[in-house]
């Protein structure tokens, strides 16, 4: 994963509560066995007027001029401003993949769904929780000011507004460290291989019923 640096970017105000994972990336795009290329289908059902299909030529599809992402003043956005319960719904990591692939690096919202929040960190996306009031203020400012951009500095945990004032935010120290260093969770966990093996041995002894490896029976197979 690439290392996280300070982000300076245009802000997209997405004024909806409960933006769900189907909204972020509809299921037909989950059929891909790849990890990239989802950006063109971000918010697909709102961004285009027709129904999207994987492998379609998206440049030929009719875009929805009313959807905010398609408005000229929001070209090149990298900061997403949302409301309550952002990212609710499924566990699909395709949602953060699509956001990241489109070019987003930060999401500001008053609250996030758990699994989505967690998935963001694994993909170089920084989800930031701010007070509802603060979010409401940001919506007002962004909508009133074309070209509104924010600087988000993970190291100092500060967001700088165009007028120079700052907002501070919280972030889990461990996740911050991983983002800044671009660390791979698996490598980190494997540093504890010894502890995992010890645990496993003890657990196998005390709860052997979880370690039944009866060949799960191709033999039981009853064909349709």
């Amino acid at each position, binding site marked *: 994963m690439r290392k996280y640096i300070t982000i300076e970017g245009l802000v997209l105000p997405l004024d909806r509560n409960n933006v769900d994972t189907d909204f972020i990336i509809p299921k037909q795009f989950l059929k891909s066995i790849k990890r990239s290329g989802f950006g063109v289908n971000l918010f697909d059902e709102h961004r285009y007027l027709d129904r999207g299909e994987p492998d379609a030529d998206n440049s030929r599809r009719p875009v929805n001029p009313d959807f905010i992402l398609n408005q000229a003043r929001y070209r090149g956005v990298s900061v997403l401003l949302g409301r309550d319960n952002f990212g609710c719904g499924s566990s699909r990591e395709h949602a953060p993949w699509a956001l990241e692939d489109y070019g987003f690096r930060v999401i500001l919202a008053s609250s996030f769904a758990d699994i989505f929040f967690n998935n963001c960190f694994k993909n170089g996306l920084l989800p930031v929780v701010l007070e509802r009031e603060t979010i409401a203020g940001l919506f007002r400012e962004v909508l009133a000011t074309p070209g509104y951009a924010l600087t988000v500095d993970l190291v100092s945990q500060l967001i700088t507004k165009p007028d120079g004032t700052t907002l501070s935010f919280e972030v889990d120290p461990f996740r911050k460290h991983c983002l800044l260093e671009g660390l791979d969770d698996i490598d980190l966990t494997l540093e*504890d291989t010894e502890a995992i093996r010890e645990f496993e041995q003890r657990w196998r002894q005390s709860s052997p019923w979880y370690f039944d490896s009866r060949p799960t029976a191709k033999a039981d197979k009853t064909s349709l």
Partner: protein
Amino acid sequence: MTGHTLYDKIWDAHLVKQREDGTALIYIDRHLIHEVTSPQAFEGLRVAGRKPWRADANYATPDHNVPTTTAERSQGLEGIKDPVSKIQVAALDDNCREFGIFELTMDDQRQGILHVVGPEQGATLPGMTIVCGDSHTSTHGALGALAQGIGTSEVEHVLATQCLMQRKAMNMLVRVDGSLQAGVTAKDVVLAIIGKIGTAGGTGYTIEFVGDVIRSLSMEGRMTVCNMAIEAGARAGLIAVDETTLEYIKGRPLAPTGALWLQAAAAWRQLRSDEDAHFDLVVELSGDTIEPQVTWGTSPEMVAPISGQIPDPAVEADAGKRSNIEQALEYMGLKAGTRIEDIKLDCVFIGSCTNARIEDLREAARIVEGKRVAENVELALVVPGSGLVKKQAEEEGLDQIFIAAGLQWREPGCSMCLAMNADQLGEGKHCASTSNRNFEGRQGFGGRTHLVSPAMAAAAAIAGHFVDVRKLL
């Protein structure tokens, strides 16, 4: 010292390492795998040259993309018309073969929706930690297991390390006391809970469901409740182990037997919260007042009792909620003040990991028996949760009841719950669905979903609009 919750107990038993910053390594007993969220994880293993830590802890089956007509299914992989879906299912077969992971392939009669198959096969057991790249993994909490949905990076992490890196959630208790009226089911209970606490009400919590109503539910009903814990924002839902649980598990193919069963059962009987356990949040509902529920909007919390009507956004004080309601009504093509009973339907879907178990099919069959699906209902599907559910239903003659009433009887899979296969809800069509999500486009582009219980869906299929199933009993 205060006691421990069931969640605390399972968490503590699986704690490999607690880091100072609050993150912990939790050992995972069972990892369930399907075709949609796993290919990138297997690819990650391959690229890094890693092997699964413990191949026998994994259990796989394709469910999201599989076709549900018998004609297509009889052709195996070749029956999947959509080439992209086919690649995904084939990739699961290849990955399981390559990494030595047990898979119920598409042509195996035991195949089905993972959250139906896991408990059915005894692959998920009480006291386990269970993960799957699917948010409805919460279902397995009905067996007293700590079961959570994870993302694809975590799927790879669990494959490689048998652990999950996580912070502990808070404890929430939802108590449903009293008893349910005839015709009111587990689905109505969980929709009422979500209506009360909202779709973000459980965020950051593990919810334990207790109370007389929960105790009185069958395992199928308990799974329905825990299945939708995620719809209330909670990653995991739990129900304590009791004799109902043990009876359900005994004799399942992967359940322990003989002396090991006795030992395991004794340990599992301890899987409940202590009397004096501390919960960070307690929510209480009375079962007696719960009516059959119907969602009218685009989020599971947009729900009303069958006797109710669609709310008027104009009277909503909170501006954010008001615009949510307005957006939802526009998408749904519905007007404020319309009575729920007056919502007309084009489609009925009885299926999904929420409600496609044998008890669900029995309830639905009981309602449609000897009747005919209404003229205005163009498509009515019954999709069993697994091949074994299908088999049992056929032995009981339920398939014939459905077919005689004009419903289609299909092969097992996720089907129109999320419409990744060919079973899609048409644009602008209203569907009474026993699934768990009514998000925009969930069941098909522009489709309009109303979440209900199997009995309510069946009653709606016959009437062509929603009706109070209590009046039909």
